[in-house]
């Protein structure tokens, strides 16, 4: 159990945790948004275009929170700053 293994373990574990926890909120939010949009379209079919467009833009905004989590987990897995440090220290 040297330092590199520990860094690798914690990084992978945290990446999974970040993505998992970070996806819950946006998923719930987007689900609510879609449900509301469906309701709105059902009530006002004439406005379907505007509602759909606004929905997509809103979903993209909500999605960006999940995207930040995705970026963090990608950094942890593929561009972890501590990797190089420990690899250079280990060799």
């Amino acid at each position, binding site marked *: 159990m040297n330092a590199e293994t520990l860094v690798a373990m914690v990084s992978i574990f945290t990446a999974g945790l970040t993505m998992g926890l970070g996806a819950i909120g946006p998923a719930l939010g987007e689900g609510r948004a879609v449900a509301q949009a469906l309701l709105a379209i059902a009530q006002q079919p004439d406005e379907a275009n*505007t509602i759909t*467009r606004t929905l*997509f*833009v809103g979903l993209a905004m909500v999605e960006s929170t999940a*995207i930040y989590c*995705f970026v963090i987990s990608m950094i942890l897995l593929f561009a972890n700053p501590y990797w190089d440090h420990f690899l250079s220290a280990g060799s």
Partner: protein
Amino acid sequence: MSATLLFTWGVMALLVLGSWLATRRIRPTLRPGRWQNFLEALVEVIRNQIREVTHQDPDRYLWFVGTLFLFIALSNLLAPVPGYLPPTASLSTTTALALCVFVAVPWVGIREVGLKAYLRQYLEPHPLMLPFNVIGEFSRTLALAVRLYGNLMSGAVIGAVLITLVPFFFPVVMQLLGLLTGFIQAYIFAILALVYIASGCRVQQERRARLRTQEESP
């Protein structure tokens, strides 16, 4: 010479060649050819979308937003072609596209409303919000780049993994879903670029409109 570079040029060549072929013998006829008809419909759809979002003359933004949309949409829709990797599944491409938007927002904004009025928007709704407005400018650009990249890359990776795991049928379904998300992502990218650019000009226009109504009703 990476695959991204190759396919980027490939998609661009397709767009240029297609447009050139379709508009080579363009003339105002009652019966346009198939390709001319298709392109006209496409351009008209994009113009309508821009008009609905900005409530302005769509031709001011058509060149930029339309190009973004067509490039991203084509590179995403070609995904099922064997051996083809969407250039938008690489972070370099999406970052470049997002940087274009990042530069276009102040450029168009300053051109439309002037430097002082554009910079004053960073003090809206209150001068205390200035750092957050500046951070938002950067973070939304990051989100723009990573959203497209994440969606496309995950689609490509999932496709590749599934091909090795399960036989024919299921990956095809996933690819169809990938086509849908790819198209929606292209739409979202273009619309968000448009919204960012338009919001850089809009505050001032609203203020002008308010002033005009005040002048008209003394």
